[in-house]
């Protein structure tokens, strides 16, 4: 049994690499979307804000798996082909991006009114004030929740296994299917592996929060 467990490890390692690849790609996109939407929401008038808010509420309200399935299975129906990796990354990016926009918007809003007022009194335009005064301060407050967001993306990447992405969980499932006796050790390995990844990230987020807030 030990032999077959060991023989499964290379596949698991490859799966882990895919997990990180998917997670990192999704994270980069999510940060970009988050900043774009969060800053936009902080600047634009109500009328323009509402559609952005609607999009965010949509991305947060729909189960991630439904979104992934829609992008992978549903879009081709409407003529748009995507790879499973692409659909997974896109869905994760949309979901995490919506959370990211709230992080950005919340951090900007948490910078005291006095800063905005002082900037305005000096004659700075709203965009300038944002760029020079508010954002530099807000960035520090955004870091801990964004670190936490990455952990959430890694956790959610397991859903990609359900649309055929061969990330860590899928590698585990494949090997369990080959040899059912490996079920216990492999799923234990899965739990330990994800814990080993996410627990330090979670701790880092908490420590950053204490130091930066």
């Amino acid at each position, binding site marked *: 049994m030990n032999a077959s467990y060991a023989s499964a490890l290379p596949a698991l390692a490859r799966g882990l690499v895919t997990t990180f690849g998917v997670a990192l790609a999704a994270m980069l996109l999510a940060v970009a979307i988050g900043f774009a939407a969060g800053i936009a929401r902080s600047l634009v008038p109500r009328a323009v804000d509402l559609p952005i808010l609607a999009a965010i509420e949509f991305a947060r309200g*729909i*189960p991630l*798996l*439904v979104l992934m399935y829609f992008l992978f299975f549903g879009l081709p129906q409407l003529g748009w082909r995507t790879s499973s990796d692409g659909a997974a990354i896109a869905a994760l990016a949309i979901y995490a991006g919506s959370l990211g926009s709230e992080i950005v918007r919340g951090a900007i809003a948490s910078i005291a009114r006095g800063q905005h007022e002082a900037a305005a009194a000096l004659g700075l335009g709203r965009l300038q004030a944002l760029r020079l005064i508010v954002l530099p301060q807000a960035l520090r407050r955004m870091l801990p929740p964004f670190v936490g967001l990455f952990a959430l993306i890694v956790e959610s990447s397991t859903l990609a296994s359900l649309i055929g992405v061969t990330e860590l969980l899928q590698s585990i499932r494949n090997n369990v299917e080959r040899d059912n006796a490996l079920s216990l050790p492999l799923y234990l390995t*899965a*739990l330990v592996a994800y814990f080993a990844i996410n627990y330090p990230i979670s701790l880092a987020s908490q420590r950053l929060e204490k130091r930066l807030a």
Partner: protein
Amino acid sequence: MRDAAPQLERGFLLTVEIAVAGTVGASLVGALGAALRISESRGARFAATAFTEFFRNTPPLVQIYFLFFALPEIPGIGPALRLPSVVAATLGLVLHQGAINIEILRAGLGAVPSGQREAGAALGLSRFDQLRYVLVPQAVRISLPALGNNVISLFKNTVLVSSIGVLDLFGAANDVIAQIEVSAELFITVGIVYLVCVGLLGALFRALEKRAAVAR
């Protein structure tokens, strides 16, 4: 797609049942775990912390798979642990979202001003009464937004049960698609159902938060 309606209805009912059972279970786990985390016994605190950190930092999908596929393979007691898919899936959600609740409540208790505990103690209230009448009610009010988010998370995570063959709304929808080719519209419909439910839950919790704010 009309013919699929009864199947989807049954699926939706199952989704709601799992969500309700899961929320109740997760609340119990959260309350018990938070109580243990502030216990005077170091052993209890350590056990509760270990449980919390492990189950909230591992993906719920992996937990569900473990409960369903790996538990029965434990040498000796394995066969006794062969759980029906619905049970394994709901349990997985209870453990994961329950661990998150423990963390939320722990943070909430920490956010109650220390003067409150002092005042309760000065009045002669026992530690249990201090928790029950002074600290926990305030901790829950403080934690309400996060607790509400967790309930919504759990509701959305019910879709994971379909991965082990449970026919919740999502599972039923996939089943229908396997038989008839109506992907895009069906997903959109199912998506809208989830969105509406999430919206209702959100409104419910915002109303609760308003009520709690008055009494604060």
